[in-house]
């Protein structure tokens, strides 16, 4: 839609605890992000597969680094390493 604004996009499912875990870390790190909500039905999540290779959520796309990933533990580790204290970005 617009080129300005957050460079991180989070694909999430309403009430998904793994997604909320990622949201908590994004908030702790003070990182703005776009929230894109997808369907509970796995089969209807082609957009997530297109961006991350899998239909699972959460998934993030970071335009800053070109990183696209799923699995909340991996995402939390990536965000902390990249944007946390002593992070590389």
């Amino acid at each position, binding site marked *: *839609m*617009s080129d300005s604004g957050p460079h991180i996009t989070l*694909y999430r499912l309403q009430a998904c605890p793994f997604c909320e875990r990622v949201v908590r870390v994004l908030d702790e790190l003070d990182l703005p992000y*776009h*929230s*894109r*909500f*997808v*369907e509970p039905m796995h089969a209807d999540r*082609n*957009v997530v597969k297109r961006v991350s290779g899998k239909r699972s959520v959460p998934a993030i796309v970071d335009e800053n680094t070109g990183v696209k990933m799923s699995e909340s533990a991996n995402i939390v580790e990536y965000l902390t390493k990249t944007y946390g204290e002593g992070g590389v970005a």
Partner: protein
Amino acid sequence: MVDFEVVSLPASDHPTVGETAPDFTRPLVNEEYWEDASLSSLVADGPTLLVFHPMDGAFPTTYIWKEIDERGFVADVQVVGVSISSPYEHKDLLKERAADARLFSDPTAEVAAAYDVEHDLDGMAGVTEHRPAVFLLDEERTIQYAWVAEEWPEFPAYDEIAAAIDDHV
């Protein structure tokens, strides 16, 4: 059409041609996901037909989208709907019709209030939705055509909309 008086809706003080359409931000639903979006950011991408309609599933909603689809307005303008229905209901609507349109979800009908197109539904306590209304907007959100239902039900003047798109887009 019918030999009795159709229900009249109260007069609307809606924004009119030449005025700037009120901006708002709501979840915007496409066929794949939904995301908060502002009308202003969307309109910046091109001329936009903003269509307020009753809740998804009501027959006027079905008729309105059927006609918009058949007329192919989406080939010339961005077509964007607004109703009180949730993103989940909008997804279902998009599977059936409203091809290549996007739908704002406005459950509290505050956007309806901003445009003065609220409709308090008789017999559905606590439910206020959007009366049928259509606005053609340019990239600055300036209104180039406006139509708001005065009766319940009343359907958009599709020929007028087509003419307005021809004139302005």
